């Protein structure tokens, strides 16, 4: 195994930086030991000054180099992480809370930056300093170094144990803080409900509990944290007394001349501080280092999540898409099966409507086709290619959900994302094609109207209109509408649906319907019930037969 050159550079710089920091007590020792003779002072100080210079310059270089390296890696991890979020199995992405993924790309990695800027580099130089001071002490007088190292060992063990307790209490505090965040977020997201129900007092009590709990668990971290900080002082005092008095005692214990000079004893006292301070620093910043590393690992974990994209997969053949579903079953996690061995063929260019009661498996079926959910058994083929061997179908197979996601930005900007290769004029033409011109120009700033975060400045129906326009611009070969017009008034709905019918002529469409008109307009209706397809055929045929579809039609007609 070869050591990378940057690591060699880091080690050398760290040793230089640590060594430079220990020259001071050595110089003091030399000068005092020489009885402060003028001829020794000059060279000693020159050496000391040079050492300080070396320490300073190597620290600066080390700082720069390590941070540059870390930041480059952090930026790479962020990019790779976001990409992986979009490439991992959709079912996995759906299961993981967005906040968790976001924190892996942001605050978890920010911890590394904070750590490096707030003493992480010092951790490296401290370690070097600690090692060098230990070696010098032993060379000076191993007899004095021995008790010092012994006390250091005890200190280290004690602080390590305490650090674990601190870690546990901080973990608890972090948990309570994230609980607090959830409650505050809820009070903001639910602002309208809280006001309309006049339940501010209830929310206030809930907030108070969360605030108090976070405060109390933070306060519980204090005794071990500061116990640790103060224990270093006890160790330093014990070491100082040991070196000062023990040193004198030992120096005089033998026969004849003292075995140590006063300068050596004093220098040893200095060395003790130069030994213990980094030790203390080391133990205290171990917690932060652990945090930074934990954050790093969380980001790394995300990047290493397997991608669900099929490399060297078969491209979807051009033209309208045929769908073949064979014996497909599906379930969510370990839950009960929600689709039971569904088999169906949808011809290329066919317009199909899916109807059924809430919970009959309609949306699950749509999820299978768009790979948001993998079947627990059975196969699904698009234009003859099994889904798990299919290269990415982005832009060719598109689903439009009931609540389409809008990006913060303008209405036209959102539609443009349907196909970024189109021009602004083409984007505007889509609105015209869908008969949405009047609606668009009635908006405060027309196509340039800001939609706000997640499109919240628009009503639910308006968000659906933008989603429809975006899908129309994408011009997919297979499009699935999942109750995509539920918030749109009938007149606009009919106009838009008619326009869509023209736009999607020759394309395959699957529409999950809650209105009869959608079913009537389709070439074929699939009726779902309890996870199975129970009827299949054109509206006029099914409506004439005994069966669940007829009941649905009756309900529609009566309503």
């Amino acid at each position, binding site marked *: 195994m070869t050591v990378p050159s940057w690591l060699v550079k880091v080690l050398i710089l760290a040793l230089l*930086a640590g060594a430079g*920091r220990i020259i001071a007590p050595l110089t003091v020792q030399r000068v*005092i030991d020489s009885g*402060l003779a003028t001829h020794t002072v000059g060279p*000693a100080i020159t050496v000391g000054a040079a050492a*300080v210079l070396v320490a*300073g310059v190597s*620290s600066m270089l080390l700082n720069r180099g390590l941070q540059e390296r870390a930041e*480059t890696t952090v930026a790479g991890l962020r*990019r790779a992480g*976001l990409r992986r979020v*979009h490439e991992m199995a959709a079912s996995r992405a759906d299961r993981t809370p*967005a906040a968790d*993924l976001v924190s892996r790309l942001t605050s978890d990695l*920010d911890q590394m930056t904070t750590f490096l*800027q707030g003493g992480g*580099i010092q951790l490296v130089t401290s370690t070097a300093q600690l090692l060098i001071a230990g070696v010098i002490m032993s060379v000076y007088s191993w007899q004095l170094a021995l008790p010092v190292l012994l006390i250091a060992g005890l200190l280290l063990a004690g602080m390590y144990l305490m650090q674990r307790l601190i870690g546990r209490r901080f973990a608890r505090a972090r948990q309570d803080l994230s609980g607090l965040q959830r409650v*505050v*977020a809820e009070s903001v*997201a639910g602002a309208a*409900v809280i006001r*309309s129900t006049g339940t501010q007092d*209830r929310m*206030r009590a809930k*907030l108070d509990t969360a605030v108090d709990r*976070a405060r109390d668990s933070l306060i519980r971290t204090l005794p071990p*944290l500061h116990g640790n900080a103060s*224990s270093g002082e*006890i160790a330093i*005092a*014990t070491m100082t007394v040991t070196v000062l*008095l023990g040193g004198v005692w030992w120096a005089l214990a033998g026969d004849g001349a003292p075995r140590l*000079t*006063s300068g050596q004893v*004093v220098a040893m006292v200095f060395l003790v*501080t130069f030994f213990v301070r980094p030790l203390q620093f080391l133990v205290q910043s171990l917690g932060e280092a652990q945090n930074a590393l934990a954050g790093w690992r969380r980001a790394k974990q995300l990047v290493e999540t397997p991608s669900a994209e099929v490399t060297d997969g078969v491209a979807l053949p051009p033209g309208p898409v045929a769908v073949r579903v064979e014996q497909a079953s599906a379930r969510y996690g370990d839950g009960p099966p929600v689709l039971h061995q569904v088999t169906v063929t949808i011809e290329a260019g066919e317009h199909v409507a899916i109807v059924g009661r*809430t*919970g009959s498996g309609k949306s699950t079926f749509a999820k299978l086709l768009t790979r948001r959910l993998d079947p627990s058994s059975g196969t699904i083929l698009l234009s003859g290619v099994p889904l798990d061997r299919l290269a990415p179908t*982005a*832009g060719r*197979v598109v689903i439009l959900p009931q609540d389409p996601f809008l990006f913060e930005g303008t209405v036209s900007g959102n539609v443009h*994302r349907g196909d970024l290769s189109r021009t602004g004029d083409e984007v505007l033409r889509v609105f015209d094609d869908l008969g949405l011109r009047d*609606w668009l120009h*009635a908006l405060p700033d027309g196509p340039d109207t800001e939609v*706000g*975060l997640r499109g919240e400045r628009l009503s*639910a129906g308006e968000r659906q209109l933008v989603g429809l326009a975006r899908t129309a611009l994408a011009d997919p070969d297979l499009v699935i509408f999942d109750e995509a017009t*539920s918030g749109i*008034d*009938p*007149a*606009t709905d*009919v106009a838009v649906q*008619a326009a869509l019918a023209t736009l999607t002529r020759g394309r395959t469409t699957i529409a999950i319907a*809650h209105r009869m008109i959608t079913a*009537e*307009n389709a*070439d074929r209706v699939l009726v779902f019930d309890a996870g199975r397809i129970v009827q299949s055929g054109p509206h006029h045929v099914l409506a004439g037969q005994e069966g669940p579809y007829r009941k649905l039609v009756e309900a*529609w007609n*009566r309503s």
Partner: protein
Amino acid sequence: MKRGPTLLALLRGARAHPGPASVATVTGLLNGATMVAGAAAVGWATDHVVIPALSGERVPPGDWWLSTLFVLGVSAVRWSTIFVRGVATGRVQYRAQADTRRAVAHRYLELDLPWFRHRSPGRLLAHAISDVDAQWSPMQFAFFACGMVFMLLLALTELFLRDVSLGLAGLALVVSVFTLTAVYQRLLTPRAREMQEARGLVAAVAHESIEAGPVVRSLGLIDAEDARFTANVQRLKRADMRMAAVSSVFDPLLELLPTATVLLVLAVSAPRVASGELSVGDLVGVIYLLITVSIPLNVISRFLSMLPMSGAGLERVRSVLDSTEVTAYGTADLPGDGPLRVATSTGLTLEPGTVTVVVGRVGSGKTTLLELAGGQRVPAGRTVCFDGVDVRYLARGVVAANVAVVSQDPFLFAESIRANLELSGHPSAEARDTAEVEEAAGRRPYDEGEIWGALELAAADEVVRELPGGLDTVVGERGATLSGGQRQRLCIARALLRRPRLLLLDDATSALDSRVEREVLGRIRDSGRTVLMTTNRPAAVAIADRVVLVEAGRIAATGSHEELMEIDEYRRLITAYEHGQEAAGDDRTQLAR
């Protein structure tokens, strides 16, 4: 933000918690004194024990004991003050933090809804969490720094007493450290702000992109998202490196300055020790002091360095606490408990116990009208009267006790279904006995019968029975573990449980099967309440006593369904699907050909 107001705010925070604050101050000062005393102890031991002993003189045993006691005694005071100061400081910091957090969170409950519209939830969350953290973060060093200032003064005095030139060297060290710190801060502050901003942008883009996951996959936007994210990531990297460029120079500089001073003092003092002007013990004490001084200097610098960030946090927290967009209330009550009569200045009147349905195209202003007539949001220049009383004169809580709303986006709290339905108990009935008062903050709690009754009315009883924990099932954030239709039904049940005198339904049945929708609306109609609802389903007008047609933000017509059928726009809306059927029929025949 100037340092003055920030320091003042910190001081106020400390004074709000006088107990721990005074403990921290006293131990902080004591600790500062022990650092000077520690240097003196080592110097004394060197002069009285180490040097005489090693140069062959006899050292009386008393001096051995005294030096041991001196060093250990000072140290005992030092470590115990470190501990006590740390704990007391933390108490002040975390308590002050909690007070501010509470104030911000409580403020959110009072502010007007339009205030929220202009601010992203992420930003509001940051005000309550990270901005409050930032505001109080210097507190952790405040008492330490106080003690260290005291220690610096003591140390400098001692240096001057020993020798003026040594004192001057010490003073030079202190002055140069503070000058360096000031320059450092000046360079760091804008860079830190830039970094914070860049972090915010990276987080916002990451959050949006991840939430947009399905769209990104579906439309193949991965490269576009990567490009958008990369631009921000690179910006953050540059900001981080600009911080690093400054800190990598100044941190070692500040750290090594005391060492350089020690060397300087040695060079200057060596001849004077040789000539007997200074004792070796004096010099050792001074050098020890100079090395120790690096700690207080470090602490004071860190304290000062946190002030700009704290000031920025304080400013943002103040922007919430000082905002005046709170709802004003009057003192009037609404007597009686029958259905309300509503009259608005826009010409809409709801007779008690009638059902009024608002129809109109997407974006025509249906929700705005609903919110106005329901007294939820009354813009300036408009008035709404409930039973003849102007809504603006009503006392706090009166509207909420009499009106129930089900909005387009059904919201549930991340609590049990039962808690979501009950909330604070019955809004207008007082508690019957003291046990109940404690349970529901003075309001009468509901009994099982009432809860299941409301669930049945909203066709949500099946939903609840099928859940693993029934009424005690805890739902996810915003009710995420339930489907849109289930959430809608539970929200309707919550509204009905409150027995409102006016019920507002904002397209609240859009995710229900038409059969279920018809049943629910029928039962609501039979309940005899005043109901105002918007809908996109033509069938819903069947239950309406009166229909209101809105166009481009105004009421275009009001009347019965039959009357409005005379109006083109209304007829077009209501019969759209019937016409659509014919059109589609033509379409299909064309295709067949």
